């Protein structure tokens, strides 16, 4: 990925990801713990509430039982029951009911016939009197029962009514009932802050919740332990508590049950606030971490950028004296960047030194070769000139001899002058004057100039029409190109002695131009003798020549010019088949840099 190829991006992304991961993990852990704790608290509260409800219920039951015992033990009731006279009993029962505010009061005689009823219709009283509770009471045992009513569960305490101590005389029974209805559920809710429902036989009979919730609650009656139920928009945690102990209920699964309900939605509302807070914190933290990561990444890569800038500058200008100066006043000095900068500075110093040494050596070497060439090249004309001068001193000189000697001297002087010019061309640094020219037109001109230089093979032009204009020094590049064309024509001419060209009909010297990405290419190809492999690497060396009479400076000068224009020159040759010189010029934009 290109984004990751940058060190700064990598550092930034890694830091940002790490920060996000850490923050996310921390938030997640906190969230999970808080949620767990809230759930646990809710469960604990439910269990505590259940214990409270149980305790309240037990207390209530005990109170009612005591109350029932007191009433059953009251002599007026005993005397009334003994009369077996319903109106008499009813009077007494009414009196007691008003005192204890019981929802239901039923008195039976010793055979279980109802003598008095308060708070229930006669048929209801008969139904209640037919319950096992009354039979148990007549056998002398108190009993506790729960019966479903349309508006709740009635909690019934049935006690025997008897008289006497050692061998009591059973007179009848008394049942005192209290409703587990909406009103009681409401009272329990005030105490426990939980919603309460009473149900039996798979039916909810009373609850603090609206009647529409009854079907949903009914499903919870047979559950054990904590469960959850969705009522309307709220989710409730529910705990069912049997109202009767298994002994009392006779092991019935459908026994009366109190449901304790707590709205999870309400209880866990604070969790939502915490969640929102955590998310906001996470976002802010991630943002800060991202900014910080970006800052850190920048402090790491800024010195690198500075170093890179200088390196690029050095590469473009070749100015090896440029030094990387990392600000010493920086707040956080970067030892690694400083080391890199110092190393680079040392490297450029070394390169500059090596360059100086190499150029020194080259100069000495060139001087030596120059001396040899000059000695040879100059001595020859000088010898010819001396011989001509010697002939001129001879008596009896004819006009023809005179003319010949003068021509020889003139020719050799011209030759000397050419040698001096070439040496100067090579040695003297000539400033490059750039101008934008049409390369194809320029090539035609050079080919013509080359053909004017002497007889030989014609230059075949193979010019690409789409070659863009180039930015060159035309005077200097013309010298190089004409030189190459002249060499090519001479190579073809040299071949003529060896035999015909391998492919007759094909052009012997070709000048080709082509556009390529990032620049243009000029190729000079010939079908001449070619260059020996041993010499191929040395053709651009100054004063290297295989031709008698050559100075060995032509290709060296061409190379200097092309490289001065920012381009390259290369040679490829097959001995006996031909040679190809290739000049690559950069596009104007590149050349300018």
């Amino acid at each position, binding site marked *: 990925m290109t984004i990751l190829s940058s060190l700064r991006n990598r550092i930034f992304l890694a830091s940002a990801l790490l920060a996000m991961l850490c923050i996310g993990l921390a938030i997640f852990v906190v969230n999970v713990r808080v949620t767990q704790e809230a759930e646990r608290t809710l469960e604990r509260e439910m269990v505590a509430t259940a214990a409270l409800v149980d305790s309240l219920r037990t207390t209530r039951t005990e109170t009612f039982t005591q109350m029932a015992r007191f009433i059953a033990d009251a*002599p*007026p009731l*005993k*005397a009334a029951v003994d*009369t077996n006279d319903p109106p*008499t009993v009813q009077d007494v029962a009414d009196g007691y009911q008003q005192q204890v505010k019981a929802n239901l009061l039923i008195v039976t005689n010793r055979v279980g016939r109802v003598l008095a009823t308060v708070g229930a219709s006669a048929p209801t009283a008969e139904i209640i009197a037919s319950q096992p509770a009354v039979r148990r009471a007549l056998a002398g045992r108190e009993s506790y029962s729960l019966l479903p009513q349309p508006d709740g569960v009635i909690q019934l305490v049935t006690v025997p009514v008897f*008289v*006497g101590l050692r061998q*009591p005389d059973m007179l009848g029974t008394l049942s005192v009932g209290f409703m587990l209805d909406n009103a009681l559920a409401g009272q329990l809710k005030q105490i426990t802050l939980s919603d309460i429902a009473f149900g039996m036989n798979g039916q909810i009979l009373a609850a603090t919740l609206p009647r529409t919730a009854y079907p949903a609650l009914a499903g919870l009656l047979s559950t054990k332990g904590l469960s959850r139920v969705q009522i309307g928009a709220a989710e409730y945690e529910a705990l069912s508590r049997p109202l009767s102990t298994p002994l009392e209920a006779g092991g019935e699964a459908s026994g009366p049950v109190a449901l304790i309900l707590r709205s999870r939605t309400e209880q866990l509302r604070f969790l939502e606030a915490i969640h929102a807070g955590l998310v906001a914190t996470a976002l802010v933290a991630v943002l800060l971490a991202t900014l910080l990561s970006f800052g850190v990444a920048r402090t790491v890569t800024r010195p690198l950028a500075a170093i890179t800038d200088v390196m690029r500058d050095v590469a473009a200008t070749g100015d090896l004296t440029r030094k990387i100066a990392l600000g010493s006043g920086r707040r956080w000095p970067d030892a690694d960047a400083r080391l890199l900068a110092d190393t680079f500075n040392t490297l450029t110093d070394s390169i500059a030194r090596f360059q100086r040494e190499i150029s020194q050596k080259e100069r000495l070497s060139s001087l030596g070769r120059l001396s040899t060439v000059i000695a040879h090249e100059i001595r020859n004309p000088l010898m010819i000139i001396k011989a001509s001068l010697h002939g001129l001193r001879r008596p009896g000189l004819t006009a023809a001899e005179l003319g010949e000697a003068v021509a020889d001297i003139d020719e050799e002087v011209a030759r000397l002058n050419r040698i001096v010019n070439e040496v100067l061309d090579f040695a003297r640094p000539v400033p490059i004057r750039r101008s934008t020219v049409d390369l194809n037109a320029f090539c035609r001109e050079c080919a013509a100039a080359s053909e004017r230089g002497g007889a030989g093979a014609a230059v075949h032009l193979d010019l690409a029409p789409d070659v863009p204009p180039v930015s060159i020094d035309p005077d200097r590049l013309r010298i190089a190109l004409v030189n190459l064309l002249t060499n090519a024509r001479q190579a073809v001419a040299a071949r003529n002695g060896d035999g015909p060209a391998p492919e007759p009909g094909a052009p012997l010297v070709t000048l080709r131009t082509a556009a390529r990405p990032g620049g243009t290419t000029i190729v000079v190809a010939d079908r001449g003798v070619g260059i020996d492999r041993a010499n191929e690497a040395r053709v651009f060396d100054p004063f290297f020549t295989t031709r008698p009479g050559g100075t060995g400076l032509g290709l060296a000068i061409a190379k200097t010019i092309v490289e001065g224009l920012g381009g390259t020159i290369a040679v490829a040759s097959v001995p006996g088949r031909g040679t190809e010189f290739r000049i690559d010029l950069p596009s104007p934009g590149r050349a300018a840099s």
Partner: protein
Amino acid sequence: MTRGLSLFVASVAAVCAAASAGASAARGGTIRGRVVLKEAPKRIERLPSVADLGAPMPPRHGADADRRRSVVYLESAPRGAFELNPPAHAMMDQRNETFVPHVLAITTGTVVDFPNSDRIYHNVFSLSRPARFDLGRYAAGRSKSVRFDQPGIVRVFCDIHSHMNAFILVFSHPFFAVTDEDGRYHIDNVPPGTYSVVAWNEGVSSEPRPVAVTDGGAADLDFTVR
């Protein structure tokens, strides 16, 4: 078995009709026998309550014996029996938080005294149809009286001590007897004739049984109650 109270209402009317022809009131025969209780009254497993706090523990000996006493009476009495009733006085004591005796049989018109022989307050009241009364609470050593004019069974209670109770059986004729602790009884001076006799114990009556009484003779009649 039927409850005694309802029997009584009917029996009183039948007394005259069933009476035998004018026999000598001075002599007459005797009915005697034994009332066997088939089973002792069941003990009730009861939880201790606040009412027990003031109760004497253990109860006075004889309280159980009192409960074994039954009453045997003629369901129908001979004609002219009522004129023989002398104005009478009976007593039901209150000792150790117990009515003594536990069963009292009297003729109509009898005044029953309820002396308080305890050191504590007592109360005597009844809601029974033949005699509804409430003597209120009164201190130790005092006594109050009630005259019983209606025949029937009257159960008396004390509204302070919930375990106290006693039976007063009020007859319109004198032909009845309270058994001893073993159930033995005898009814004397019964004019000759045929009668139906009932035994009663603690609110439970036996089936009426016929008996023929001869002048100067003794008829044996045993009962099994409960």
